[in-house]
């Protein structure tokens, strides 16, 4: 119904809407139909009449409109709206059922129509777009046609021009040809003229020459002479001979001899060349025959277009060829046979090759499923076999190598082996000796150190004793001056810290170890230690005790390690020797 509402909106006047209005008119109430008619001015006639008529369906003319509808419907093939009249006189009654049926049918019809209309609309749209497309196509084609027409005109123009040019060129060519002809004629005429002139000139020249000759030569010119001390002998040592007919004949003979020799020489060369070529031909032929003979059987069996007969010829030829005397025959007799047979065989070979080619192409076309192709299994078997063989061969080689080595080893003299061994031993010996000396040196060092250690220990023992004594005395004194030394004690501590300075941290770590392991260092630093001890005497017993040991150790370190002349790490290493032999050995190894 919303649809309908929009339809009745007087603002809307598009044609498509009108159509939908017309189709839905059966649903419209009579009151609205009027306005609709006002809106729709160009509706089809039949519908116009219909709507016009129904517009008059009011309270008054119900009967008429019903009858009219009935009439209309019956004309359209619907059942009558009135009940079947039993009697003619009775007034026909409106059959509600029939009306409803009619309405239903009309609605169905309407729906169908709507559907059809939609289809038609879409088709129309489609057709419209098609039309547009076609129109654009048409325009394009028209344009194309225009351009091609223009192009054609241009091309025609160019063609015309080219033709024109061509004609001109032809003309030019012709002219040039004429010119060339003319020039050639001129050249020829010039040449003849030149020759003529030359001849004339030459004749004159000859005449002059003749005259000169007569003048110069015939007059017995005394000047023309040869002075020679004595005549020399001929180069060949022979005497000059008189000119006679005999000499002439001899000269001729000699000339012909020379010519003959030359020809003979050349003939020999040519014969040699010929023989070579013949040999090559024969060889070729033989090879061809050998190449073709395995194929002989097959063509025979197949009886291919006459190759069989040719092949029999070939066989005959082959038989003939075996006679070596053929080679020495003169060309004429052999030539034909040879060339013919070669030609034949060549033909056979050619056909054979062609056949092969065909086969190959066929195979290619058919794929590799023929029996010619080696099957995969065979292939694998073959490779396996080959691998096995390779393995065997390798083993064989290995055994052979071993045997060879053994043989070599046994074959070698004892001298050489001993020498070789000696060589090795010598090298090793030398190395060992070196190591030995090194060890010895180290040992010596150790001994020295041990001695110094023991001395130091003894000294330390003595010192300790002295120290103990001193301490006892000192303690005694402290007990006596307990109260008076308080401030001095703090001073002492400060002094101590300032003294130990940077090496404080070191000393803490070293402290525990050197005390037990480095008695040797004490030996060197003992005087300083004692001096220090005397200095720190006034400290309180608890702290000073600690201080004493600490300062003592630190003093020892700084003093003994510095000026003793030993290098610190070396000494440390040596000092540790007794306790950690493994480490020392490592270190020694590294040093070596």
């Amino acid at each position: 119904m919303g649809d309908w509402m929009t339809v009745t909106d007087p603002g809307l006047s598009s044609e498509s809407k009108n159509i939908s209005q017309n189709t839905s008119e059966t649903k419209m109430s009579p009151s609205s139909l009027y306005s609709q008619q006002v809106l729709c001015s160009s509706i089809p006639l039949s519908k116009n009449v219909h709507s016009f008529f129904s517009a008059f369906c009011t309270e008054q003319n119900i009967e008429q409109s019903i009858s009219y509808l009935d009439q209309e419907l019956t004309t359209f093939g619907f059942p009558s709206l009135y009940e079947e009249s039993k009697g003619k006189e009775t007034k026909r009654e409106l059959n509600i059922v029939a009306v409803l049926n009619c309405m239903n049918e009309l609605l169905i019809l309407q729906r169908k129509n709507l559907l059809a209309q939609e289809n038609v609309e879409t088709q129309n749209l489609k057709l419209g777009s098609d039309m547009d497309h076609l129109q654009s196509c048409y325009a394009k084609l028209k344009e194309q046609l225009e351009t091609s027409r223009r192009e054609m005109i241009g091309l025609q123009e160019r063609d015309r021009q080219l033709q024109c040019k061509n004609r001109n060129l032809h003309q030019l060519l012709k002219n040039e040809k004429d010119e060339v002809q003319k020039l050639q004629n001129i050249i020829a005429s010039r040449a003849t003229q030149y020759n003529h002139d030359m001849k004339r000139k030459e004749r004159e020249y000859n005449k002059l020459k003749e005259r000169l000759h007569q003048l110069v030569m015939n007059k017995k010119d005394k000047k023309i002479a040869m002075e020679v001390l004595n005549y020399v002998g001929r180069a060949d040592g022979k005497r000059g001979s008189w000119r006679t007919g005999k000499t002439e004949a001899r000269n001729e003979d000699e000339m012909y001899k020379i010519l003959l020799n030359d020809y003979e020489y050349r003939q020999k060369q040519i014969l040699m060349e010929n023989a070579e070529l013949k040999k090559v031909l024969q060889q070729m032929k033989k090879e061809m025959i050998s190449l073709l003979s395995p194929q002989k059987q097959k063509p025979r069996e197949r009886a291919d277009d006459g190759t069989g007969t040719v092949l029999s010829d070939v066989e005959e030829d082959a038989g003939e060829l075996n006679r070596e005397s053929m080679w020495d025959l003169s060309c004429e007799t052999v030539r034909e046979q040879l060339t013919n047979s070669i030609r034949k065989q060549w033909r056979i070979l050619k056909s054979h090759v062609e056949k092969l080619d065909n086969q190959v192409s066929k195979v290619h076309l058919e794929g590799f499923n023929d029996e010619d192709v080696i099957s995969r299994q065979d292939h694998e078997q073959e490779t396996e076999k080959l691998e096995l063989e390779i393995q065997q061969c390798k083993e064989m080689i290995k055994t052979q190598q071993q045997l060879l080595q053994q043989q070599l080893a046994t074959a070698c003299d004892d001298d050489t082996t001993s020498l070789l061994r000696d060589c090795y031993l010598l090298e090793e010996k030398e190395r060992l000796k070196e190591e030995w000396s090194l060890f010895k040196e180290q040992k010596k060092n150790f001994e020295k150190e041990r001695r110094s250690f023991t001395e130091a220990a003894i000294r330390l023992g003595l010192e300790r004793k002295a120290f103990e004594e001193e301490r006892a005395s000192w303690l005694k004194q402290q007990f006596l001056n307990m109260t008076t030394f308080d401030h001095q004690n703090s001073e002492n501590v400060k002094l101590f810290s300032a003294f130990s300075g940077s090496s404080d941290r070191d000393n803490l770590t070293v402290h525990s170890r050197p005390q037990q392991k480095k008695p040797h260092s004490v030996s060197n630093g003992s005087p300083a230690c004692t001096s220090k001890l005397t200095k720190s005497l006034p400290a309180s017993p608890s702290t000073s005790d600690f201080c004493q040991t600490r300062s003592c150790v630190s003093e020892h370190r700084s003093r003994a390690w510095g000026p003793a002349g030993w290098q610190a790490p070396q000494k440390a290493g040596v000092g540790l020797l007794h306790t950690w032999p493994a480490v020392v050995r490592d270190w020694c190894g590294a040093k070596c």
Partner: protein
Amino acid sequence: MNFSEVFKLSGLLCKFSPDGKYLASCVQYRLVVRDVNTLQILQLYTCLDQIQHIEWSADSLFILCAMYKRGLVQVWSLEQPEWHCRIDEGSAGLVASCWSPDGRHILNTTEFHLRITVWSLCTKSVSYIKYPKACQQGITFTRDGRYMALAERRDCKDYVSVFVCSDWQLLRHFDTDTQDLAGIEWAPNGCVLAVWDTCLEYKVLLYSLDGRLLSAYCAYEWSLGIKSVAWSPSSQFLAVGSYDGKVRILNHVTWKMITDFEHPATITNPKIVVYKEAEKSPRLALGSLAFPPPRAAAGPLASTESKYEIASVPVALQTLKPVADRANPKIGIGALAFSPDSYFLATRNDNVPNAIWIWDIQKLRLFVVLEQLSPVRSFQWDPQQPRLAICTGGSKVYLWSPAGCVSVQVPGEGEHCPLGGTLANERLSADTHHGSFGALSGT
């Protein structure tokens, strides 16, 4: 390479004897003969006038010295220094003098080619041959010295006479089908005579020793024809160089062309080796610059060194544009020579004057191209091995062999160029037996 000291020379007259033992050179009217090995002067002869031509006899026993201006020929013997011989052509004049191959006869051509006089050193006999033709190469002897062919001109027709050299008897006399015969040459085997026509017509005629025409060859018409001809030492090929810049090789069996060698100005084939001479400018040491500069350094050619570089193809060679309206245009194959083993052929195309083409005759293709900095004046093969010597008129000699090529500075040349002049005429002569070269410079 070793160099001797510089010998004085006049008129470029310097020749090795055929046996390679002696070297004859002329200074004005004196003839100096030196031993090749020691370079000591063996003999010194004094002629009557300035010598214009010298020639060794084939047996290296005699030397003839021609003084054309005086119409005189003097002959000297190497074995007998006191022996002398003087031939006076008198008023007939003299334009050419040469030995016969036996070394006992001298052929003198008179002025205007009126006749050739054959003087014998053995007998008193004198023979005259009339009507010799004045042409490029009118006399040729066979290599074995038996026969002489002579081009003649009578009644406006060309003839060839074949003489037996032993007694100067006429063996054959036949006319040749030429317009204006330009040259004749025996094949090395002495059985075929090549006759070629004037440059106006391309025509080669081949005659047998007995005067039969074996073949005639004409490559083209209506254009300038043959410029140079050479036989291969094996007598197998005849190379004909022509004005169209091609060398055509004829074979000795059919006398047809086997191949033609074009001489393109650009070489594109990468198989061909192109050696290009490149100048190495000497380093100037500022401290050692003398003032005034020494003579040797003043000559521009003497101071610069050069070497060969292998150019990468394509190489464009320097070409000369020939002057079209002058006679004897500088185009075509002006010189060609086979190596003594017949393996190589060296050619020079006159419109590419700086280049020498060397062709491989076995493969019948171009092998090497040498491009010099200046025009090639002459080249000559070593008589014993495939080695080519080239000179360009500078103070250098260039040697090529299949192994490569070198440029050699001839020492001391600069001092012998008075006024810093260029070595205008340089010639090569090859020692037949020792394979050594002498490069001669004249001033």
